[in-house]
């Protein structure tokens, strides 16, 4: 629990502030429309539904302002880089930008529901009071003229008793834009559920551009001034507290009260969302500009199991370990950008990505390069993004745990450690690395195998055999594989991977692993990094962190563990 607080306090603080502001804005607007005398007569017809609608509208403006900011990835990278003097914990929430985006989106959906339901009641009540013939204040107010010489007299937007609500909705700016932007919102949400996003990414990506309609519609939504309050002049002449009760006598020229005059207010949404829209427009322009920069493909390597490695160069590109880039291939799809973890080390003079078939776009990319037709397809790169995993170099003992596709950042980290080691970089404090690689089957990661293989050989040549200790765990095994392994027990290299280290089957027993390492390094600081595969995981991280708590308790030596996660997509 203590560890969780240390790592997450800032994210929790941000969420509390965000939610607190939501509550504050909601309550403030609610009280304004519920108690302000300006809306006395409006409330006479509409009741509390007015306040609910306006309060949710204000929160909708606030959240619509926020929703564009987390997707400005270049802006976030800029903030991350500029604030490098801030501690890691303060910059970590920048990596969870998409989670925040989704949270704000859920809040928008909830507030939209509240807003629509409140306005349904509002329209119904306007309609009823327009048709009412009981001579009540509500019906008098509703009958205030739309066309008289006092042009601003009207309160009820429904002009005549025969107008249906559907007609009013679709002929008023607010109604029509409201329906359109709600449909856009619903389509965006249904195409953005994880199932669709994961398997049919293009549906999500292209449909999500409906946000443009949402933003434009939101700005136009309030133009009609359909929510009306009494004008200041009218309040000075005939304040509702004095005049409301004598509403039958308003027509009487001798009475001191006149008909109240009403006005709508200017649309406010644009004030909230103008700045984020400009930021986002700037972000898209920047992405476009960066994509125009030339990317030179220096090497194309096809690994087994249809894994494509692209080694590239770009002017002015500099990366750190654990970062990722977004890649676009115009010949496949003009608008789609897909993230890939960088697998090269910063010390190398190129940067590389490994692409595995995971859907339409990746399949087309691999096919395009397989055909070996010149000229090579053009590639555009945006990035790098993501928090750097540079902490790993400052600990004597590093425990790296990668599951499935999460192993890719470790390619970069391991290579970088190797380069630093070779150059005797004194900033590298690492003496020993324990690398745990857990995956269903090694087929798709044969390229990583080769990397481990070459690192193994180089360790031997330098005489530093104990530097890199890795354990490979295959969770998708069957009795055939185990049988083979048992038979080939004596062989020096593993039959599956060709590595010196034998493959284990099933999930690691973390208790054993942690206690072994803790016993072997009683006074060292350990850096455990964990990069987990997206989706249903092949292993459960929860038991591992439970064991961590035990290790911190007395009896396990004084090994300190700080659970950090190298972030990357």
């Amino acid at each position, binding site marked *: 629990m203590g560890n969780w607080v240390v790592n997450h306090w800032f994210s929790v603080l941000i969420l509390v502030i965000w939610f607190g502001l939501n509550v504050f804005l909601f309550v403030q607007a609610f009280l304004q429309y519920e108690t302000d005398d300006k809306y006395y007569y409006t409330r006479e017809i509409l009741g509390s539904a007015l306040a609910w609608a306006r309060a949710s509208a204000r929160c909708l403006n606030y959240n619509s302002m926020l929703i564009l900011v987390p997707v400005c990835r270049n802006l976030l990278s800029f903030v991350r880089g500029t604030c490098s003097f801030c501690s890691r914990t303060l910059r970590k929430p920048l990596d969870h930008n998409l989670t925040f985006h989704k949270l704000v989106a859920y809040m928008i959906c909830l507030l939209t529901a509240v807003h629509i339901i409140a306005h349904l009641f509002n329209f119904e009540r306007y309609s*009823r009071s327009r048709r009412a013939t009981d001579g009540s204040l509500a019906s008098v107010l509703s009958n205030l003229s739309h066309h008289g010489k006092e042009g601003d007299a009207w309160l009820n937007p429904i002009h005549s008793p025969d107008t249906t609500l559907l007609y009013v909705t679709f002929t008023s700016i607010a109604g029509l834009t409201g329906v359109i932007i709600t*449909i856009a919102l619903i*389509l965006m949400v249904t*195409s953005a559920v994880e*199932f669709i996003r994961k398997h049919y990414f293009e*549906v999500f990506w292209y449909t999500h551009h409906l946000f443009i309609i949402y933003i434009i519609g939101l700005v136009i939504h309030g133009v009609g001034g359909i929510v009306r309050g009494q004008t200041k002049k009218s309040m000075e002449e005939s304040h509702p507290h004095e005049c409301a009760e004598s509403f039958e006598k308003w027509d009487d020229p001798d009475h001191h009260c006149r008909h109240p005059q009403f006005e709508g207010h200017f649309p406010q949404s644009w004030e909230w969302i103008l700045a984020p829209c400009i930021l986002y427009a700037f972000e898209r322009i920047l992405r476009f500009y960066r994509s125009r920069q030339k990317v030179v493909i220096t090497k194309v390597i096809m690994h087994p199991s249809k894994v494509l490695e692209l080694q590239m160069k770009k002017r002015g590109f500099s990366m750190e370990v654990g970062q990722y880039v977004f890649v676009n291939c115009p010949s496949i799809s003009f608008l789609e950008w897909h993230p890939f973890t960088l697998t090269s080390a910063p010390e190398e003079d190129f940067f590389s990505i490994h692409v595995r078939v995971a859907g339409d776009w990746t399949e087309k990319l691999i096919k395009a390069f397989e055909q070996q037709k010149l000229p090579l397809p053009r590639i555009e790169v945006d990035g790098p993004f993501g928090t750097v995993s540079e902490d790993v170099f400052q600990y004597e003992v590093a425990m790296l745990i990668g599951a499935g596709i999460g192993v890719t950042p470790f390619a970069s980290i391991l290579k970088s450690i190797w380069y630093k080691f070779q150059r005797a970089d004194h900033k590298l404090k690492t003496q020993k690395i324990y690398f745990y690689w857990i995956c269903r089957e090694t087929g798709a990661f044969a390229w990583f195998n080769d990397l481990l293989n070459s690192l193994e050989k180089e360790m031997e040549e330098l005489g530093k055999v104990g530097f890199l200790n890795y354990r490979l765990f295959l969770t998708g095994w069957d009795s055939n594989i185990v049988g083979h392994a048992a038979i080939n027990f004596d062989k020096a290299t593993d039959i599956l991977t060709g590595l010196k280290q034998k493959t284990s089957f099933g999930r690691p027993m973390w208790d054993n692993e942690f206690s072994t390492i803790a016993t072997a390094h009683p006074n060292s600081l350990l850096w455990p990094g964990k990069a987990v595969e997206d989706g249903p995981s092949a292993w459960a991280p929860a038991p591992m962190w439970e064991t961590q708590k035990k290790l911190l308790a007395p009896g396990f030596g004084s090994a300190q563990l700080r659970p950090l996660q190298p972030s990357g997509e």
Partner: protein
Amino acid sequence: MGQIEWAMWANEQALASGLILVAGGIVATAGRFTQWYFGTYAIAAGVLVCLLEYPRGSRAKGSTLERCGQRYLTAVLKLLGPLSRNYYFRAALHLALSVPAGFLLATILGTVCLVIASIIYLLAAVRGEQWTPIEPRPKERPQVGGTIKQPPSNPPPRPPVEARKKPGEEDATPAGGPPGGPRVNPIPVTDEVV
């Protein structure tokens, strides 16, 4: 774009539309709006749509994540046969269900969403997609005793090859697998344990 199964998105959209219809219907009925009986209809139609759309169909390639507890509704849908499999039928059904709800403001949003779902289902049907239920994976039982068929036919201790060859069977295979069944050892075996 070739691999997009439009029916999957149509399913999400239709499920959302069902929920929106129910919500709009509840508002109209509870608030006793004008013509609120359309609201009651919307609740019923929304529930029907939700029940029909809740079981997710299986993807053409790869595994599909089930919705929680959809097994029971999948069983019901399988009974409907072509009515649940065919997406033309679903498109028409959703279009038909959405029309009455279009008369009331509270439920018009549900109508429009359901019409959109219907259009996407039509697109899916034109492309030849079909609803296939997600079958539960048969539990793999360990094959205990599956390989034990007959007792071994040539158990040790075995005499050398020459002794195993019976006279008159010169052209028999030298590896000498004598026929199965209990056999008498040609060389007497004594138990030498003291």
